[in-house]
Each structure stands twice: as C-alpha cells, then as structure tokens.
C-alpha cells in the first residue's frame, strides 16, 4: 500500500507542476496577479509531494520491501543501511526521482528568495522551472516508475551494483544533480528575461549567486567521480574522457564561461545576448548529459541500461525545452543592446576571450563524445575517438587560455590600462618562468614538451591572482568576499594546471606478477609484497594484501589493496591501496592471481596527484565565498533596479 502512496504523490506533483507552469507563464503574460498567486503554493506543494515520494522509496529500501521491483533490483538483505539509502539513486528510476526532488528543492529556494523580485518576473522564472519539472515528472511516471511492483515477490534482492557501493560514488550523483539541476535556475532566469524583453544589470546580479552555486556543486560532483575512478577502478587514472565524464564536464565548461560573462554583464552591461545564450547552453548540456547517460546511446563504463523509448522521450523533451529556448532567443535577443564599449585589452575583452576558449573547448568535447553517433547518422563506419583526440586537442585550448587568464586578471574594466600593470605581469611571469624551469629541469628532469609550459602557466596564474588581494591588505583596504572567492578559484585553477602537468609527465608505473616477500622496484622506490590474507565484508569476500613502500630501502608507507567478490552480483572489484604525501601518491592495485602465490599488481608513483583534488576544493570554496558576498545578502528591492549601475559601485563591484 505504501509504495502506491508514493506513486500517487508523484502524480499529484505532476499536476501541481503543470499548474505552476501554466499560471506562472500565462499569469505573467496576462498581468493577472490572482493567477500568479497560485504559483508559490504550487511550488511548496510540489516539494512536499516529491519529498513524500522520495521518503516512500527510502522506506521501501530500508525495510527490504522486495515487492517493489526497483528495490528488488538494487538492494539485498546483506546490503549495509547506508548503501540501502544510496541505492535510491543506484539506477535509472531512482536517479530520475532524485533529479525531480532536487529540482523541487531548487525551485522552492528560488520561490522563497524571489519574493523581492518584480512579481511578473518571478512568476515567469517559477513558471519555466515548473515546465521543466513537469517534463521530468511525466518522464518518470510514464516510462520509469520507481514504485512498480513485482509478483511473485522475490525472497531477496539482486543487490546494488557493487561499483556503486562506495562512499564517494554514493554522494557523487546527488552532487552532480545539484549542479545539473541548478543550471535550470540560470536557464529559467534567462527565459524569463527574454519573455519580459528586459535584461539589465540587476538581472545579472540576481542570476549570479544561483549560477555560481550550481557551478560549485557540478565541480564537486565531477571531482568526486574522478576521485572514485582513481581508487576504485584499479587503473590508476583519474580522468578517461569517458562519455559520461564528458557529459558532466561540458556543462561545467560552459557554466564557467557563464559565471564570467555574467560578471561582465553585471558590472558593465555588456554581452547581454551572449550571457543569455550561455545560460541556455549550460542547462541544455546538463539535459544532454542526462540524455546520453540515460538513453544508453553511448556505451561506457557508467551506462547501465539501454531503452529506446526512454531515449526518445528525453530527446523529445530536449527538443521542446532547448529548441523552445533557442527559438525564443532568436526572436528576443536581437532586441537587446549592449551600450557600453570597451578596449581590446580591457577586462571585458579578456572575459570574452576566456569565453571563446571555454565554449570552443566544450564544443570540442561535444564533438569527440558524439563522434560515434555522428558517424552513425552519416552512415559512415563506426568511429570512436578515445583519449588521444582529447589529450591532443584539450591542452591546445587550455594552455593559451591559461596565459590569457594570467594576464587578464590584471586588466581593468572598460579601459585596459595593461601598461600600468606591466610590472606585475612581467614580474609574475619572471618568477613563474624561473620556478617552473627549476622544477622541470632541476628537480624532476626534462619531460614532454608541454610540461614546462603547463607548469609555468600554473605558477603564473597563482601569482597573478595573489597580487591584488595582497596589495589590498598592504594598503589596509577592505577585502570583500567576492574578491577572496575569485582569488581562491583562480589559485585553484593554477594549482590544478600545475598538478595535472606534473601528474601527466612524471607518473611512473609498472605492472608485474610478484609473490609475497618479493619487491617491485620503481626508481628509488620499492613495493614490497608482505602478505595476502582473506577478508570477509557484509556482502562480499575477498583478499587484502599488505604492501610496504620503501624509499631508498627505508619503509615510508604501508598499503592495503583489496580485491572483493560481491556475492549476489558476482563481480570482482578492486580497491586500490594509496598513500598520499604532500607531493606524491603511492598507488598499488591487485589485478589478478596468476597462480603459485603470485599476484599481478599495478604499482604507480604519481607526483602531486592530491593537488588535483585540492584544486577542485579551492574552486568550490571560492564559490562559497563569492556567493556569500555582502551585496547578495543586501536584499535589493525592485525599485532600485532601474537599470543604472547603482549597486555597490565601490571597490568590491569593480574587481569581481
């Protein structure tokens, strides 16, 4: 009986989402305040109903209700409680439900925070969000009902995919969805602005914190997924250009462009139509990501099911939402004028260059990801571009972008005045060049040609970002959170560039079969295979080895790689043993028992790998600071939004 309540709640939520869309959009179009008054209660009701549905499904998981097909397929009586809750989004149906719930939560937040916005604008924003929600709920109910019953009731469930039984991967999807769905807010703001036919600097200020928040979640979600791939897949890599990774990376690239373009729109009133387009693109790519993962058109590590009906439904939805928004854009965007001019070395210009590089990079990833589909549609031979394509092209876009960032940080709005910053630019570059070259040729040794470039640029970006905040502190000026946030994010980028250059160039690895007592030598390091013993977990058994890492013969770390056999799904998973030092990851993974007590293992030394995650963390922390800046907390009333740049003309606004 309880599962049917969940389904019923979903159907009611669908009705409310429809009402929210209808009364929000048409209420605003007719200027009918009574219609618009329906919208916020509909948002609240929808949130309560979707929460109920989520609660019902969690209840079914926790109480082992195997009469529910989804629970029977993704859970098991031996599955620990934490993963029984995480199993909620372990497969298609539950993932969609989570998507819908996160959208309902974002919409509720927008409904609460938008009470000071002009009524018709807020109605349109909520109406667009209601429309998106309607589509997703309809999709869930029509093609992917998570509450479907199964008869006869199986005695036990088929268990959660063992790949997903991991803390990082358990929270990876919700983070990613927070990012994907969060982009719908910027999208709704963009559609509402086009429907209103008005886009001013206040609009950009409203949109910015939402976009930055979504961007941060997306970044954390991507980093978690990459971290998981690193220690769980046993290959020792952290990024594979897998279609599903790409699906989350493309919206991140475009969202990064969007937060910068929004800054220019807020401060200078420029790039209006471009900002709108980016807001549409960021959410479209989020939807496309969902489509690629859920329709199963691309085979990948992550794809779990292929179902053409679902694919067609999402495609139809994509066409309505994205096609509609782009048509609206073609109609409305020509009416927007960006009055302010700027010079070729002004901050606006650098943000424009940054945008071009980011969007081209996203397009490059898109083409690479869809290459098999495009070849198929053209009737050409099956074609799959692997990491060689991305590894070759991506740095060619990112390295020039790095140099532009290191210089552009010093540019002022409107007039470049780069001349006055020449000292900073050159001294930063000089120090970066020196330290980068010392690191490459003095400490680590010559390597791939791109290595020194990447490292010098990484250091340069870090130094460039620090000039302004240090200068402010020295002159005892205020240091607004917006600037702290921007600095953290840019330092994070520099750290990431530095770390990736190091990892890609100086990783050493060796695969070999060794027996207990033997040592695998890797340069100055040795991996001594001490022992291996059997282990048993709640729903798996397996082996755990003890490996001591020696440096110049002295032990520096002990690693415990595992191999687990999950009983129900009968699959074998590796858990790598990793020890992290500030400048080095020592990695070992068991790959197989080759007999005679010997195991083939993969051992790696990856310098500075930890800094890749540090980079993601710094960017997310930067977003937290930027979003909590004072000027977003001071509630702007509709009256002061007359379009003139009244807001915080002070130093904070100038710089961020």
């Amino acid at each position: 009986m309880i599962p049917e309540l969940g389904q019923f709640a979903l159907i009611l939520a669908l009705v409310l989402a429809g009402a929210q869309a209808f009364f929000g959009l048409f209420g605003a179009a007719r200027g009918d305040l009574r219609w618009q008054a329906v919208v916020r209660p509909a948002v609240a009701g929808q949130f309560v109903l979707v929460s109920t549905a989520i609660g019902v499904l969690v209840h079914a998981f926790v109480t082992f209700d195997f009469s529910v097909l989804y629970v029977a397929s993704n859970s098991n009586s031996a599955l620990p409680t934490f993963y029984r809750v995480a199993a909620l989004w372990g497969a298609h149906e539950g993932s969609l439900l989570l998507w819908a719930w996160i959208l309902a939560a974002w919409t509720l937040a927008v409904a609460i925070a938008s009470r000071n916005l002009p009524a018709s604008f807020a109605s349109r924003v909520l109406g667009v969000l209601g429309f998106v929600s309607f589509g997703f709920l309809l999709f869930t109910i029509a093609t992917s009902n998570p509450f479907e019953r199964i008869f006869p009731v199986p005695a036990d469930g088929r268990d959660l995919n063992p790949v997903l039984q991991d803390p990082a991967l358990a929270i990876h999807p919700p983070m990613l969805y927070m990012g994907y769905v969060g982009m719908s807010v910027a999208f709704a703001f963009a559609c509402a602005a086009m429907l209103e036919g008005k886009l001013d600097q206040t609009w950009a200020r409203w949109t910015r914190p939402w976009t930055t928040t979504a961007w941060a979640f997306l970044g954390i979600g991507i980093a978690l997924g990459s971290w998981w791939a690193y220690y769980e897949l046993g290959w020792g890599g952290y990024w594979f250009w897998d279609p599903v990774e790409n699906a989350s990376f493309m919206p991140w690239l475009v969202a990064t462009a969007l937060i910068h373009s929004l800054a220019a729109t807020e401060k200078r009133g420029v790039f209006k139509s471009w900002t709108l387009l980016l807001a549409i693109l960021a959410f479209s790519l989020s939807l496309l990501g969902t489509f690629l993962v859920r329709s199963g058109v691309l085979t990948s590590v992550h794809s779990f099911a292929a179902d053409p009906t679902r694919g067609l439904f999402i495609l139809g939805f994509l066409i309505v939402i994205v096609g509609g928004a782009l048509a609206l854009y073609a109609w409305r965007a020509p009416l927007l004028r960006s009055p302010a001019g700027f010079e070729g070395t002004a901050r606006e210009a650098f943000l424009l260059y940054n945008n071009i590089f980011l969007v081209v990079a996203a397009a490059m990833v898109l083409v690479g990801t869809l290459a098999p589909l495009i070849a198929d549609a053209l009737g050409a031979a099956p074609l799959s571009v692997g990491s060689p394509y991305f590894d070759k092209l991506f740095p060619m876009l990112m390295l020039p972008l790095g140099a532009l960032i290191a210089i552009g940080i010093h540019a002022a709005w409107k007039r470049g005045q780069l001349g006055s910053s020449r000292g900073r630019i050159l001294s930063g570059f000089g120090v970066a060049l020196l330290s980068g070259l010392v690191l490459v040729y003095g400490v680590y040794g010559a390597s791939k040609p791109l290595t020194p470039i990447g490292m010098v640029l990484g250091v340069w970006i870090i130094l460039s970002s620090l000039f302004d905040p240090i200068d402010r502190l020295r002159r005892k000026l205020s240091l607004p959170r917006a600037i702290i946030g921007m600095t953290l994010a840019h330092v994070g980028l520099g750290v990431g560039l530095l770390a990736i250059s190091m990892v890609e160039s100086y990783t050493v690895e060796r695969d070999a079969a060794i027996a207990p007592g033997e040592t695998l030598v890797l340069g100055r390091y040795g991996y001594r295979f001490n022992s291996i013993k059997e282990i048993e977990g709640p729903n798996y058994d397996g082996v755990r080895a003890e490996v001591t890492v020696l440096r110049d013969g002295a032990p520096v770390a002990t690693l415990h790689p595992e191999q687990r056999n999950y009983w129900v799904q009968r699959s074998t998973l590796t858990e790598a043993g990793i020890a992290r030092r500030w400048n080095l990851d020592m990695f070992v993974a068991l790959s197989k028992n080759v007999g005679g007590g010997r195991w083939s293992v993969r051992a790696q030394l990856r310098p500075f790998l930890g800094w890749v995650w540090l980079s993601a963390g710094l960017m997310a922390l930067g977003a937290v600071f930027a979003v909590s800046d004072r000027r977003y907390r001071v509630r702007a009333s509709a009256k002061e939004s007359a379009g003139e740049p009244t807001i915080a003309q002070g130093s904070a606004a100038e710089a961020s």
Partner: protein
Amino acid sequence: MSRFLIPAAIFLALAGVLYVAVVHSPNKSTMQSALLGKPVPEFNLPVLGRPGMTVSKAQLSGRPWVLNVWGTWCVACREEHAALLEIARQNALPLVGLSWKDEDDLALDWLKQLGNPYSVVAVDHDGRTAIEFGVYGAPETFFIDADGRVQYRHVGPMTPEVWEREFLARVPRGGLP
C-alpha cells in the same frame, strides 16, 4: 536577426543526429534478428604478435567458438577484461579476440599488462571484418556454433551472468568435441 538563429540551427542538426542514434541504438531484438542464424562472414586475418601467421573462418569451424571485439581505446573493454579472464579460466569455449582498429603494440602491451584471455587474437586494422560482422561498437561478443553460424550477439561489456545465461547455455549437451 539571422545570426541569432545560428544556435537554433546547430541544435536542430544535433537533435537529428541524436534521433538517428536513438533509433539505431543497440536494441537487442533488432540486432539479433539481423544476424541470428546467418553464417559468419569469410575472413583471413593476421594474428596478433605472430608475424606471418593468419587465422581464417575455416580454421575455426567445426566447433562452437566465441568472438570478442575489443580495442585498447575502448573503456568498456577494460571493464569487461576481468570477466573475460575468468571466462578463459573456465576453458569452456575457445575465445577469439578481434583487435579492432588498433595499434598492435598497444594491443600487445594491454594483454601483457592485464592478462591474455584469448586463444588467438585476429587483427582487423581497417575495421573491414568488424563491419561485415555488423559490429556497432566495442566491446561486442558473438557466439558462433559448430556450423559457423552466429547464434548470439552481446553488445557491451561481458559479465559472468551474461556468459552463463547466453553463452554457456548454448553449448550443446555432452560438451565439446
């Protein structure tokens, strides 16, 4: 107005590609019907790591065998590799690899590093044989009976479950000759 229409035009083209992709997507029933019971195409391909040697359809006929299409560039192939090694250990059916549009050095490295589950690996540099098999994307695995006819085709990574349900179950009772 016109330049503002460009995004919509690009999107329409993309939607067309996606539509074709969905309609063509690995739909088990249609894929099966196209190949089921048809004889395996003729081929005579070089053997990986054995210069001068070749492997042909005729050499493999007379008993059931399994063809696994893979490439070092294919992430899902890496995923299924552990399952293939386990399958090879069972020694129930000869497992023939088809190294699809790959570089021999990379393929040999891969097998050295991860273990070699294959009885023999045929090299399909230009992808012609794979096309004749109707390969959609790597990995794919075919069950071919003693008469040289395709009896089953699995798209995507091989798993122990699929192996037992779809492959081992098709081995004639009484074992192999």
